[in-house]
């Protein structure tokens, strides 16, 4: 999910018909520049080197999204595939949640996320929380810094997570404290993308895979 205003122009993107590293190359009709979908960056043409702003997007079941956002609108085109989602459940290792911290790449496969659904990470000095909710299949990345403190989380009952510093209970997909001293507080979301593991690692050969629970 990308913003499409670049250098004061709103760009209109189309599928270029080309692939790069087995991944979609987009063309903008305004300048005919070519853009890598995974990098969000112009790789050829007048806008070469420009980056598209990455927007925070989520992948989850329709039911979970609708519950979280009852007023949502939804795209209404015909189906282009019958059940793409099936593989997401049966072969979770093929899908990765990838993100960048201070220019370094990291990813966790959805198989790992299922195994370790609450991970307190320290990556390049950044304190992060990576969560997965098996019910909705949503993965999320948050900052663990809240005001002046750094929180660490453990899984609790009813799909909630608890911070060890105050004992407050949090919704793991929304990053909002629902009970305890920090009730109403919200963790900052960090952007990440969901893609096929092989595509992510093809683009980012140096990406560090997050394998299992790490110590905060």
């Amino acid at each position, binding site marked *: 999910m990308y913003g499409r205003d670049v250098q004061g122009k709103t760009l209109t993107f189309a599928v270029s018909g080309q692939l*790069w590293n087995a991944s979609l190359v987009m063309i903008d009709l305004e300048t005919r520049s070519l853009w890598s979908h995974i990098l969000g960056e112009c790789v050829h043409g007048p806008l070469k080197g420009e980056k*598209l702003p990455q927007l925070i997007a989520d992948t989850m079941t*329709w*039911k979970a999204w609708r519950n979280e956002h009852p007023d949502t609108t*939804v*795209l209404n085109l015909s*189906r282009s595939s019958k059940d793409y989602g099936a593989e997401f459940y049966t072969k979770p290792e093929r899908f990765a949640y990838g993100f960048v911290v201070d220019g370094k790449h990291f990813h966790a496969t959805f198989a790992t996320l299922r195994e370790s659904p609450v991970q307190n990470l320290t990556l390049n000095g950044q304190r992060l929380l990576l969560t997965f909710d098996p019910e909705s299949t949503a993965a999320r990345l948050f900052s663990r810094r809240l005001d002046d403190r750094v929180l660490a989380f453990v899984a609790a009952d009813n799909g909630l997570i608890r911070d060890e510093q105050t004992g407050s209970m949090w919704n793991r997909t929304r990053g909002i404290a629902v009970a305890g001293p920090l009730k109403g507080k919200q963790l900052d979301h960090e952007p990440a993308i969901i893609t096929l593991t092989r595509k992510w690692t093809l683009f980012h050969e140096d990406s560090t895979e997050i394998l299992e629970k790490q110590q905060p």
Partner: protein
Amino acid sequence: MKKALCAQVLCLAVLFGCLVGSAFAQRGEFVPPAKSGARKPIVDAPFVKASEVTDQVTDNELVLGVVIEGQARAYPINMLTGPSREIINDQMGRTNFAATW
């Protein structure tokens, strides 16, 4: 007979070279082919409210979701696959964005 075999081997070698060459070319800089096979862009795609969804989307299928300027929007992955889709040029409020898969 021998000549034909030689020619075949040469052909295979050239083909192999091209394949290896293109694989390496992909690692570094992106080099576009001369011909463009660009598809038509998708703009002004139709959207409905969650309450109006009947059989278009099932509970357990995956959607790509975004919240922009307080408005939520979902894109069922099953509507985004294939070269004639993959990019939806969209806007909400004053934000122009592209939902991509």
